[in-house]
């Protein structure tokens, strides 16, 4: 056999670059928001139906499961928002090169993780 042939085709050694991961997360978070919208509209409907409905939503938000669902939807929303703003900034011509693109992807992850943690603190601190 010709020993100069490339042998490193071990797919387990390939990995997605960070911008690819932030891109797929943008898609996943979008789908989560699409599904989560049903919960949000239900809550909005109930909260505007009258004082009783508003208090019902308030009481509902005391339960662990509801907090978890709201935090999940909020996390997806915050990530989608941050990654979306990155897209809008890229539309203006920033972050389109390899290095700046990687930096923008890193910033997206860092900023959204901070916001998601803050959202969790806010939800469970209520």
């Amino acid at each position: 056999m010709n020993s100069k042939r490339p042998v490193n085709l071990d797919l387990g050694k390939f990995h997605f670059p960070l911008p690819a991961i932030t891109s797929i997360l943008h898609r996943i978070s979008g789908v989560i928001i699409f599904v989560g919208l049903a919960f949000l509209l239900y809550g909005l409907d109930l909260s505007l139906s009258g004082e009783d409905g508003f208090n019902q939503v308030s009481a509902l938000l005391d339960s662990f499961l509801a907090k978890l669902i709201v935090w999940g939807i909020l996390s997806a929303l915050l990530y989608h928002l941050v990654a979306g703003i990155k897209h809008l900034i890229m539309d203006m011509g920033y972050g389109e090169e390899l290095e700046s693109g990687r930096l923008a992807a890193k910033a997206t992850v860092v900023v959204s993780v901070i916001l998601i943690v803050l959202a969790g603190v806010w939800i469970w601190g209520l």
Partner: protein
Amino acid sequence: MGTVNSVTNLGRSGVYDWLIQRVSAYVLALYTLFLLGFILFTDVTYESWAGLFSTTWFRIFSLMALVAIGAHAWVGLWTVTTDYIKAMAPRFLVQAGSGAVMFVYVVWGVEILWGL
């Protein structure tokens, strides 16, 4: 053009889809930030919450956001479904299902906003 997919995307061309996605993104970002700001920085009671949703300008802003969600989700889900669901029948089925859910969301939202 020339592919079967071009009849199911909202703007019928990539450029229009791109524009629809950007315009709706700006509306949704502003709406989200406003609503988060309202919840975070004001003392939300039933009176203030119902009061906000009873003003004409916020109902219009909300309706705008609702329509933007419909368009934004259609373009987004169309992109995702055409990328990952290769077989035509399941793809159309999922796209039709998504479109139906989007339609229900918009009608439901209008009902909530105007209390029909």
